[in-house]
């Protein structure tokens, strides 16, 4: 319950009033029935990382409505500023499920079950982009040497690991290749930082970038893509292995996979520009695991 109170204060991007109200109600309910309530009576806590377009409060409302109806009970959406906070909550079983990044999934594979993976452009895959400001003239990524570089999050695959791996493959460290680098803790923030000139280049989620091309074309127009990575496993929804017995996790998987057939679910997918969710094998994230390995070996 203290976690709930903290959530309201520490949220990097506050959810809608409705979400807050529902969260508070759910919290109050769980407080009242804590002693003799079964596990199902406790609100289902669903974590969201900044991979997700966290500035869209409308989306949060639809998602909560959809999940509540499918899981047949209260659902609490938990957001945090960093990937790390959500990952820590998930791995420790504080939350029932979360939409995390492929990188922390690979890191904590032993403690996590894959629930479902989003499908974008027909495949559960996405890319990482290296972007620079629109007026920047460079042949390829090596031209970005000496830049002030904006990363998204140290636990993000597309916003950090992919670039880190690229540099490691070339025997380079971010600190040596870039003059300075900083984290914006959000893919959209990376685009903003590069567009504003705060950073000369940035590492960003290709999916977020492409969706922003439709939702915020003016911002995207101020940037250009310098390099696109290979296709990698899309950030998945995972749950802790410790909660594998919770029926609601199974129900969640069912709900996500069938989301495209549901009216409320369709709204969520439309807002996210996703085709739907798939139950995928962990092997989808082997390429990311390989990257982790390269970085680890380089040091």
């Amino acid at each position, binding site marked *: 319950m203290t976690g709930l109170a903290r959530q309201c204060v520490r949220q990097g991007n506050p959810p809608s009033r409705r979400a807050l109200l529902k969260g508070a109600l759910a919290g109050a309910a769980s407080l009242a029935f804590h002693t003799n309530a079964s596990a199902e009576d406790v609100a289902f806590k669903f974590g969201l990382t900044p991979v997700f377009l966290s500035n869209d409060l409308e989306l949060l409302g639809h998602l909560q409505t959809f999940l509540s109806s499918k899981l047949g009970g209260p659902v609490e959406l938990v957001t945090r500023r960093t990937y790390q906070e959500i990952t820590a909550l998930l791995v420790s079983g504080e939350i029932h499920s979360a939409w995390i990044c492929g990188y922390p999934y690979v890191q904590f594979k032993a403690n996590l079950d894959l629930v479902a993976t989003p499908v974008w452009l027909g495949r559960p895959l996405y890319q990482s982009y290296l972007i620079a400001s629109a007026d920047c003239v460079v042949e390829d990524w090596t031209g970005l040497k000496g830049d*002030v570089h*904006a990363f998204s999050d140290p636990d993000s695959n597309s916003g950090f690991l992919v670039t880190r791996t690229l540099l490691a493959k070339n025997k380079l460290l971010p600190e040596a290749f870039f*003059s*300075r680098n*900083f*984290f*914006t*803790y959000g893919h959209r*923030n990376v685009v*903003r*930082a590069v567009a*504003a*000139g*705060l*950073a000369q280049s940035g590492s960003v989620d290709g999916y977020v970038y492409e969706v922003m091309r439709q939702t915020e074309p003016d911002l995207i127009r101020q940037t250009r893509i310098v390099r696109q990575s290979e296709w990698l496993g899309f950030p998945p929804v995972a749950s802790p292995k410790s909660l594998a017995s919770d029926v609601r996790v199974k129900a969640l998987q069912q709900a996500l996979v069938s989301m495209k057939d549901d009216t409320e679910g369709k709204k969520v997918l439309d807002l996210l520009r996703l085709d739907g969710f798939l139950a995928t094998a962990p092997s989808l994230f082997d390429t990311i695991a390989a990257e982790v390995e390269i970085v680890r070996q380089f040091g």
Partner: protein
Amino acid sequence: MTMIRRLRSVPVTYRVPAIVALLMVVISAVISEHVLDRLSRTQEGYLNGLAETYLDGLSSAVIPSVLRGDVWEVFDALDRSKSSYAALSPVETVVTGSDGRILAATDPTRMATFSQLPDSYLSRYGPGVVTIDESALTGFAKRDLIYQGQPVGTIHATFDVSRLFAERREILFTLLVTNGLLAVLFSLGGFLIVRQMIAPMRVLENHMRSAAHGAAEPISPGEIPAGDSEVAGLFRGYNTLVHAERERANFAMQLAEEEKLSSLGRLASGMAHEINNPLGGLFNALDTLKTHGETPGVRDTSISLIERGLAGIRDVVEAALATYRPERSQRPLSADDLNDVRLLLKPELRRKRQRLDWHIVWNELRELPIRGGPVRQAVLNLLLNASTITPDGGSISLKADGSGNHLKIEIGDQGPGIPADIAGILVDSDPGPAVRAGRGLGLWMVRRVVDDLGGSVAIAAKRDGGTTVTLTIPFERESTKAYAA
């Protein structure tokens, strides 16, 4: 002084509006100065308040991020504050860390993150909250970020204050236009009111001007404003003056006429005498003719007697006609004119047993280039006057000298002297006051003749008692030439 004198020479119709306009300009200058001063202080207070609020809000938002050196969070806070503080129009805000390096600026392309803050930013602040650079229309403010008593960084903010100056300009413009319009309106109003006020004065002025040219007309009742008692009083006063003047002029004319008639009467009686004297002789001669007409000697003597008697009568009648017939008055003066006067005067002299000393020096010309009629009239009047005031059995004199380029006539008497006020009629530059007193109308006629002929009069007391009146009459120019030719 000359400025004031020049201003005074401007008609009051224009002077009053000009003074009103000038006053309005002064008042508007004072008011504008006060308003702008007050406005500028209000704006300063407002700007300071806004800047304080901005810096307060921003510092509480960025201190945690500055402590962590979180470039993005600082930038994000700055970026969001742009829209939150639109009223302040922040142009640029820079946040530096404790080492003076830039953490983030609202425009990172201008002020790159991690670079050193230019020295100009450190030296641009004055003592107040907001320092204003009027030439660049910008304001500057800074706030040190203090965390647990330690400085962790600084916010440097630049605001666009052009709106404040535009507002001042706009208000100044409004003041100028309003006050200008008021000045014009007041001046116009002043012009109309003053013109309205002095319109009766114009009426009075016009009447006085025409009065100066001899036609003093009273102001018609229709022109006397009913409501304005002061002006009405003035007009009525003027009308009273005109009426009094007219009456006096009529009276003077009447007197002059009576004077003329009286002198005419005296002359006529004298003439009657002059005619009557030979008549007795003539009748005697006729009786003699009737009785002794056959006697050639007696007849011739009687006829001769009758002829001389009739010639005497003819001379008297001709002299009188010459004096009183205006058509003859334009002829040039000749010695005969003066002799006619002597002839006309003779009965009066005889009546009073007075002697006339007659001395005339004439030049070679028979006629002088002076109109004869008026001179005869003037000399006759003066001689009649002299005779009147000279005791019976006394003597009067006439000396005329026409030998130079002017005619000088001296008339002497043995009277007690001419009183000063009556003498004024002849010698003062303005004979008006003496004439208006209704006295010395005979002398006034003399004066008019002398003025008409461009001459002058002098009065002197004689050593042996009595007075000499001297007329000096210049020859007429054109006539002089004509005679010279």
